[in-house]
């Protein structure tokens, strides 16, 4: 516990921007977890008497074309963004990390085949690859979350994470303790999981936080294109499309605040990822 506190103090001292971004991320997480308590309105409840209301006392960020409270939809939208962002980033980085580790450890033909496949996947722009997966998979809803959407966002992350983790693992593979483990007769999987994986945790964590930001952006893009979350569910990207696009002149708050939320979230996760990298990388410390 004392060590954790000391590490946190060190992080606060050395990464002031990181702590600001961490606060922003925690606010977002708080909103997502306690949306029912924080939001003043049901995000899906239509109130035509309040449609297109400008920001005011009752609706601090105004209402949309259906009279739905924008602040409440943003708060619930944080849940969608985080659920999809965290899960897809976790799946993508973990799968990519596993491939990268195995590729680096086994080397030879395994590495050659894995890297060419990764090259192939990397040749697709992220949004195109995600669009293909969404189009092929359709929708598969579990507990209100579209699993295929998460996979669609995770898939483009896999080759990128694999490439980074492989690079880190290649240097770990040459470490004496790996040689020692080999000499002791440990199995390949034990060496990978017990001796190599813990030593690539730092780049993994950095990738994970950075790709949450990218996943949030990708989810917003797919929802904007009508391929992500569907109305009336609250989602930030979705709030920028549809009727918002039609009413941006008479009700600019309909696009302003969701756009701001996306930008802030992406900025916060990116900053936090950068701070984490700087803090964990001993070379940058010196």
């Amino acid at each position, binding site marked *: 516990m004392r060590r954790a506190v000391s590490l946190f103090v060190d992080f606060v001292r050395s990464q002031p921007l990181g702590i600001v971004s961490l606060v922003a991320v925690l606010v977002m997480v708080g909103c997502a977890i306690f949306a029912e308590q924080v939001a003043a309105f049901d995000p*899906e409840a*239509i109130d035509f008497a309040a449609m297109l209301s400008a920001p005011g006392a009752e609706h601090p960020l105004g209402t949309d074309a259906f009279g739905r409270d924008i602040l409440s939809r943003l708060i619930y939208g944080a849940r969608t963004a985080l659920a999809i962002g965290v899960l897809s980033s976790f799946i993508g980085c973990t799968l990519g990390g596993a491939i990268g580790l195995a590729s680096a450890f086994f080397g030879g033909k395994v590495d050659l085949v894995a890297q060419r496949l990764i090259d192939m996947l990397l040749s697709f722009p992220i949004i195109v690859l995600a669009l293909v997966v969404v189009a092929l998979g359709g929708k598969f809803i579990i507990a209100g979350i579209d699993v295929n959407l998460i996979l669609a966002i995770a898939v483009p992350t896999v080759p990128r994470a694999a490439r980074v983790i492989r690079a880190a693992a290649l240097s770990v593979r040459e470490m004496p303790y790996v040689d020692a483990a080999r000499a002791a007769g440990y199995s390949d999987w034990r060496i990978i999981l017990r001796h190599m994986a813990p030593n690539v945790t730092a780049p993994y964590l950095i990738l994970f936080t950075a790709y949450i930001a990218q996943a949030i952006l990708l989810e917003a893009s797919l929802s904007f294109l009508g391929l992500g979350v569907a*109305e009336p569910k609250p989602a930030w990207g979705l709030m920028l499309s549809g009727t918002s696009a039609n009413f941006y*002149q008479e009700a600019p708050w309909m696009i302003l605040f969701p756009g701001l939320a996306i930008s802030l979230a992406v900025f916060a996760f990116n900053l936090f990822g950068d701070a984490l990298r700087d803090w964990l990388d001993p070379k940058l410390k010196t």
Partner: protein
Amino acid sequence: MKRLLGLLMLALGFAAPGAQAQTPVRGGILTFAVAAEPPTYDCHQANTFAVLQRVSAHYSTLLKFEDGKYPNIVGDVAASWIISPDQLTYTFKLHPNITFHDGTPFTSEDVKASFDRVKSPPQGVNSVRQGSLVKVDRIETPDKLTVVFHMKEVDASIMNTFASPWNCLFSAAKLKADPKFPERNIYGTGPFKFVEHVAGSHWVGARYDGYFKPGLPYLDGFRAITMGAAATVNALEGKQVLAEFRGLAPNERDRLTKALGDQARVQEGSWNLHMDISFNPQRKPFDDPRVRRALSLAIDRWAGAKALGRISPLHDVGGVMRPGGEFAATEAELETMPGFGRDMAKNREEARRLLKEAGQENLTLTLTNRNIPPYVAIGVYVIDQWRQIGVKAEHQQVELATWYNTLNNANFDIMMDSYTDHSDDPTTGLVKFLSQTKYPVSSSRFDDPELDKLYMAQWAAPDATSRRKLVRDFERRTMEQAYVVPLVWWYRIIVTSPRVNGWTMSPSHMIYQDLATVWLTPQ
């Protein structure tokens, strides 16, 4: 004296140009926007405005809706006609000197060949409105300018069928050589000759000087430009196009009137186009009429139309026929039908009771919808209405191809759909509420002999009064059984340049598109 001079100047200087402005002027090219590409050039096989708003100017029909006097029917190639007292024989005399665009004479054989193709399409031709001619027994051509339709039984809708813009008149010789000729070729007798079609870009027509109506058309030609809704509004604002003839949303109209002032001419009116929801009785629990009826009862159509009308073209409350049309229910009649009662607390209480009785108090369902406006808006509204009786709905928004696939495979719980017709005739208008197993344009599959019986009865009704009563009975049965139920009706908003004259606004975007009487005020 000065005052007298002033009055004289007023009379000469202002009244004269005003009167002159009403005199059609020849010349000019009409540019207008069309939001979609035509999948075919063939009227008989088409069912989208994207075809008619381009090809109508190239073809004639036997009869047509009278310009400026919808729903009056007048002759197009028919100069006159006689209906036998038993309504079983229709004899048409054609205008003489009608020619195809290459100068080939047009005769009664061409009329017969065209209607025969609709009624009994050759292999490989999908006649979409084949059912509209099932009561025609045979077509005869005693001479080159006479065509006779012999009926098997009385058809209350046959004049509407003869005036249908979909029943373009083709060349008998061309059809004989190749029954699919009209799919990719334009060869008609209409006011404009075909010049070119560049897919995704434009469609061009030029005046046919040999057109059989003297002095028409006024325009030198037209250019239909393919563009989406947002581009259309920009193009109207920038005066790159002079018109859009399908319909705009209220906010688009407001933007244009604000930007263009008196340079935007707005024409509005009810639209023969409705949104409806189709239940899938082949899937539980939608096989239970109590569940379907409860879901229909929960929707406040009156409040929905009022509110959605501010953000979309969904504007009017109506039953199975267009509000304001000859066969439409009055508000008082509608209010007595399930789903149209004004007391929503009572309706929702009844809906909850029906769901409880059916053992579906915690019903969850999927609403399959198209992913374009205003379908999404009405989908969001309907889901909100169902929430108020405790029903949870997943909103599945899909691309058009997937939507059709879902529909054709009956792979849905409830489907959001729409339907439009070229006129207010019940025979073609009511098919949407019948079973898809018999009428392909419908979305629901069921067997209801009572509904079929009422439909057939109105089709054979001897007069409008008895027909109207049968339509009401059909409407009540539709709302009670709720296989397919109407939600709200669209509102048509047309914005054109004030230079565009002679075009007739109507409740359908399928008619008045031959452009023969349209003319442009010179710049």
